[in-house]
């Protein structure tokens, strides 16, 4: 188990990229800024399952994003949010 690069509460930006292989980041989340909701375990990297077994494993996080940041004219409160699982290599620290 490696040391997690990010910790709970830290602000992160999800990378905006589209590798030409199966990956587990939906387009609506790409480029978004959120905070780490929790640090999860180590799992095979989805992009690496196309050839091989996904190793080396990557750290997984749950990232919380305000709904009003995700969607123009979101119909709800400013406290509504969405939580999504993102692997470490898709995250960078955000201001």
């Amino acid at each position, binding site marked *: 188990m490696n040391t997690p690069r990010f910790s709970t509460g830290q602000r992160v930006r999800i990378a905006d990229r589209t590798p030409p292989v199966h990956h587990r980041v939906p387009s609506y989340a790409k480029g978004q800024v959120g905070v780490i909701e929790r640090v999860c375990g180590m799992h095979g990297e989805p992009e690496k399952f196309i050839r091989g077994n996904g190793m080396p494993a990557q750290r997984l996080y749950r990232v919380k994003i305000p709904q009003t940041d*995700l969607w123009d004219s979101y119909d709800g409160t400013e406290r*509504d949010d969405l*939580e*999504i699982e993102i692997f470490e290599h898709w995250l960078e620290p955000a201001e």
Partner: protein
Amino acid sequence: MTDHDHDHSKTFQPDHPEPTTDAARVGLALRELLIEAGHYTADEEQVVIAAMQGASPENGAKVVVRAWKDPAYKERLLENGGEALREAGFDIEPYEFTVMENTEHVHNVIVCTLCSCYPRSLLGMSPAWYKSKSYRSRVVREPRKVLAEFGVNLNDDVDVKVHDSTAECRYMVLPQRPAGTDDWSEGELAGLVTRDSLIGTQRDLQ
């Protein structure tokens, strides 16, 4: 095709309809090849299928009732869902298990926008609407409207939290225990818990 000796009767589910699409035929062919190549056996496959078919929302209801009756267990369940699940005699390895608690001011709802991830080995097969493109695309964008269509009408003093199951976690909502059920038996309490309340498309149990 005379020299292969694997047992077809073991590689097909007897009640499974004949494939009607190319994709389904490719899927079945792949499965036979994997078994022939020795990656797993037909018997191992049957064990997994039987476990999934044997699971039902009643399993989730048992976990919910235990959490309602035992505050220390509830704390462990919310902190580390996987361990608390094993403690209750269930397991959804290799996935992580994450339980989200509904409160007076929070409502949780679960979706998998990328496919249809669902804790099948705990809750059984997912409902058809959970796998529909409509639910998957809309509940992230307009959760309050989708929930209202399910009969869950939320005021602004209730925050909505959508959980997109995009990778290795599987989710269950811990619904609120209805008032006036303090002296109910475990069986009576379990009878309140529905599949939809564990996904978050139902809020009030009755």
